């Protein structure tokens, strides 16, 4: 996960679990970095909820229209890391 910088995929998984739960058929502990949120069972409302939580806890601003353009956990984590580093 080092390539993702200080905000890791595990950190993101924690946020996913906390604010939107986990679909019964999905194992978040498997390699899901490039699986789309949609395939993981997270709809647009779930992504907005995650973005708001990241914004509140990390101070990283993720506008709603940007959040909708981040299709996978890797994309969202990378977006957060770039802003954290800035």
């Amino acid at each position: 996960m080092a390539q993702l910088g200080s905000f890791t995929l595990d950190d993101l998984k924690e946020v996913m679990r906390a604010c939107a739960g986990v679909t019964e058929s999905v194992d978040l502990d498997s390699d899901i970095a490039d699986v789309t949120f949609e395939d993981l069972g997270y709809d647009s409302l779930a992504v907005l909820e995650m973005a708001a939580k990241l914004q509140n806890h990390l101070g990283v601003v993720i506008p709603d229209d940007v959040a909708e353009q981040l299709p996978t956990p890797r994309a969202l984590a990378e977006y957060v890391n770039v802003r954290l580093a800035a």
Partner: protein
Amino acid sequence: MSRHAVITGIGVTAPNGLGTEAYWAATLEGRSGIGPISRFDPAGYPVRVAGEVSDFTAAEHVPSRLIPQTDNWTHLGLTAAAWALDDAGADPAAFPEYEMAVVTASSSGGTEFGQREIERLWTKGPSWVGAYQSIAWFYAATTGQISIRHGMRGSCGVVCAEQAGALDAVGQARQLIRTGTRLVVTGGADASLCPYGLTAQYSSGRLSQGDDPGRAYLPFDVGAAGYVPGEGGAMLVVENAADAHARAAPVIYGEIAGYAATFDPRPGSGREPGLRRAMELALADAGLAAGGVDVVFADAAGVPELDLQEATAIRAVFGPDGVPVTAPKTMTGRLYAGGAALDLAGALLAIRDGVIPPTAGVTELAPGCDLDLVRGAAREARVGTAMVVARGYGGFNAAIVVTKTD
């Protein structure tokens, strides 16, 4: 080919029992689920006693994905719906999705969820209000989540008529069955025992301020002084009789033989409330005379004026001591949208087992309320037909007649 709506599944989440058989056993034994409010410290509130579903853990019954998205009231409704489908032996995957529907009642919506979000709003600011508030609070949330979870895409809806709502929902379910829907999940639930929800309910002036759980809610009694609020409810599976037989449904609890709803005249008009008419219309709809009813599950407001109105209406329809009357909700509190659904479940179980559950706590009937109220212990009786009566705050009245099927 006339279509008959029959009930093939029951799921119960009640303060005195989680699951149909747990609820029924407690109810027949007169075991109450009413106690001091534990969800928050009620010391500063005028209402301190309620019927909480205290042994319910959402994570054990609701998919984890849904828990953060939905209110406790929806957790209870989803659980009851899944149990009702199990009870009916009905696998939704085996039915065409557009031929299944969901019609539930809701009275408060997701107030506990809403209270949490409002607290975030005033303590931390708008960006802390969760996105799920938009779908968790509103009345149709439980209907929608049941529909999504089980893939039921027929004509779905929600009825908001306070305590009368679940009977209206079941009436609508019967209508859907008659017009071709194969299976309907119906009933109601409510769970609004948070400070915000309770404060809203208190504005009706009908809530009991009693602290003794055994004496706080005494409908038809000389000591009646309001009702105890509760949470939970029941969901039912309704199908067309011929289809249920064709798929060899494990149980057919009874038929929805009659249903009617009326509305009260405006306050102060001096005209008779609409309750008697609702009962008479439901009987007429069932094609039955009053003498054909073996038990009435009363609305049992616990407010002296409303108790007298109901007793007067029952006596007018059935004659003095003309029918056994009971109010097992004395062991749960009034569950609002869940209340009449739970009574309907009780009525169907009374038919199944030939026993009328008791009314708890009531010792001395108020003048004018001299009904044949089943008290002290359950009463064995042949129950072929039961009527459930409900009134919702704001003028709603509804009655349903269910009959044994062979």
